[in-house]
């Protein structure tokens, strides 16, 4: 039966109650489950609010029984659901179905599970890349991913477990869709595999796992400008099977009155590793498959400062998370080559925390005395106000110093 023929039949079928349906359709074109003359069930379904993430599965794909292997045990009212999805006129004995809404939910489940399989194939990936590039799935809410486009992703391949999430290839993390209308969409309709297969296929859209701060001009305060600033030089990932896009690699560094919060504070940074990238692809190989550093000595040759720190473990050296603090462009400007980057640590030789507190307060622009910040005077219940404000009046020099 040709597509055209079905549409005509559809017309004839729905023509009977057109008069009754009309007011409803004017109110809301979506509430009616009867497709209009040109609309197939599939395109109607994909146009529903909240179904923006779905692509249209071709009917050939659904009609091929091989593609449906195993699904008929998961979907109730299989036959009726198939008829609905493919716009086939129901058999006469369709009257035995108690409620059309049950079939509708079956059809949705059927379509969703077929969709999960379809988008893993070539045609499905192509359909999804079009949607991806036009930004239909939205962008990562994380500030330092700088609007990297995301793809829908499930946490389970079985329906009824969790709703759809969004995967960001830049931070390799998953997010709740911003709009509540996606709360009703099952994550299994996209599956756990799709997002990652997608970025394997379209490596130009996948950010590489390493990142180096641009030598100058970059700033944590303007991630946008720095991301665009270094586009002049072509980016190459030596791993041909890896992501070929320049990553957005800045990691947020918390600051109190312009000073980094030391990791030695209880409230100090603990999660920067989650977003961190090595500067070179070679650094990835310094960790073995068990997650241990392969050769600390060799590592030390490359990044002497950091490793000396690990070896001697001098607490006064404080945080070695300089590479996390990539946004310190004023410091990084001094660091010329890839190894020079690590040398920024030399400035870490700060005196023990408590002794410096005073200096920190009086010299707020001192570049490397970030560690003791956490012990800065807290606002007291009564006299705190005045003290805090004093510090505020010191702010303008701080800002100009940092900027």
């Amino acid at each position, binding site marked *: 039966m040709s597509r055209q023929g079905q549409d005509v039949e559809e017309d004839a079928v729905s023509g009977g109650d057109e008069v009754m349906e009309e007011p409803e359709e004017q109110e809301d074109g979506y509430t009616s489950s009867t497709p209009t003359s040109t609309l197939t069930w599939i395109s109607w379904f994909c146009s529903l609010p909240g179904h923006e993430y779905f692509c249209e599965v071709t009917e050939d794909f659904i009609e091929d029984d091989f593609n449906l292997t195993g699904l008929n045990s998961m979907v109730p009212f299989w036959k009726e659901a198939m008829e609905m999805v493919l716009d086939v006129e129901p058999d006469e004995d369709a009257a035995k179905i108690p409620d059309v809404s049950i079939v509708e939910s079956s059809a949705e489940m059927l379509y969703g599970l077929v969709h999960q399989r379809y988008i893993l194939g070539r045609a499905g990936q192509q359909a999804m890349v079009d949607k991806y590039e036009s930004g239909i799935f939205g962008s990562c*809410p*994380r*500030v*330092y991913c700088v609007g990297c486009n995301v793809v829908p992703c499930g*946490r389970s391949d079985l329906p009824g477990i969790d709703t759809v*999430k969004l995967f960001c290839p830049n931070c*390799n*993390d*998953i*997010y*709740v869709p*911003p709009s509540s209308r996606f709360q009703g969409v099952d994550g299994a309709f996209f599956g*756990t*595999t799709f*997002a*990652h*297969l997608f970025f394997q296929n379209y490596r130009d859209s996948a950010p590489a*796992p390493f990142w180096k701060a641009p030598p100058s001009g970059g700033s944590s*305060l303007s991630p946008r400008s720095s991301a665009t600033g270094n586009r002049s030089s072509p980016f190459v990932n030596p*791993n041909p*099977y*890896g*992501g070929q896009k320049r990553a957005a690699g800045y990691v*947020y560094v*918390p*600051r*109190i*009155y312009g000073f980094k*919060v030391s990791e*030695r504070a*209880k*409230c*100090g940074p*603990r*999660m*920067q590793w*989650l*977003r*961190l*990238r090595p500067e070179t692809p070679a*650094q*990835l190989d310094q*960790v073995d498959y068990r*997650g*241990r550093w392969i050769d600390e000595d060799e590592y030390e040759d490359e990044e002497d400062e950091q490793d000396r720190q*690990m070896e001697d473990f001098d*607490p006064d050296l404080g945080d070695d998370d300089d590479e996390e603090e990539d946004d310190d462009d004023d410091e990084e400007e001094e660091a010329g080559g890839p190894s020079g980057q690590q040398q920024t640590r030399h400035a870490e030789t700060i005196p023990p925390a408590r002794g410096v507190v005073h200096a920190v307060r009086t010299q707020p622009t001192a570049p490397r005395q970030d560690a003791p910040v*956490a012990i800065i005077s*807290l*606002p*007291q*219940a009564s006299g705190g*106000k005045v003290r*805090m*404000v004093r510090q505020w*009046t010191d*702010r*303008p020099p701080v*800002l100009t110093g940092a*900027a």
Partner: protein
Amino acid sequence: MLHRAVEDISTGSDSDYSSTWISWFLSSKGNEYFCEVDEDFILDRFNLTGLNNEVANYAQALDLITDQLDDEVQDELRGSLDVQARLLYGLIHARWIVTARGLAKMVEKYKRGDFGRCPRVLCQSQSLLPVGLIDVPYEKSVKLYCGRCEDLYSPKSSRHGSIDGAYFGTTFPHLLYLVYPTLIPPKTGPPADGPASANNTGEGKGGRRRGREEVPDAVGGMSGEGGGEGISTASVALKAERYRPRIYGFQLNETAKLQRWQEAMRDRQVARLEELEERG
């Protein structure tokens, strides 16, 4: 609550219904992130040091905020004055929320989830805190800081996305966790204050919880700090969950490598901090 509903209807119009400019400002749509600055804080000129250079028509804007503006002037300048008053209030707000009383007010809003929830799935709807990327106005819009993943997110709503980040400042969320270490979110499991479940369902329930847990902090001011002395956060990162991309159940080579490297960096930090702790 009723007052607020009335205000929503009259958005845009000036203080017809509300008693003060500040309460009108706070109840207008899009200003949910702001808390009320105590009037005596504003009236203490010392707290406003330097702001007269930032705000045009400073004196009148201040008068408008404190409801002391002459009616005649109001008609002439009202349009521009409203903008200046918002700027002035925002800059005062940034200073206010890093004081003890301001922090306590923001803690209440934090516990209510007024700043939204972390969009990261594994943060399990952790309550967020507003933060600026720079303390200078007209540079960057406000962002939201998650204490669980320690990262920054853009507000979902464009209403909030257009608020100036300088009205909250770069310091605020970190100072809050410094002063209230008991509020530092756990890295695993449901959020400590259970906001995910008590989100909108039980206003009364939330109120009761606040009554029980928060009052000591808010009233005692610094008592939160005392409670946090015993907390060790050296190895909390080890418990943090993370997402692992998989294709047909298998991890991807390059991503898995990156994640192993990141975890090795994490382990390094944990070792460093634990060593530090042992030394006391």
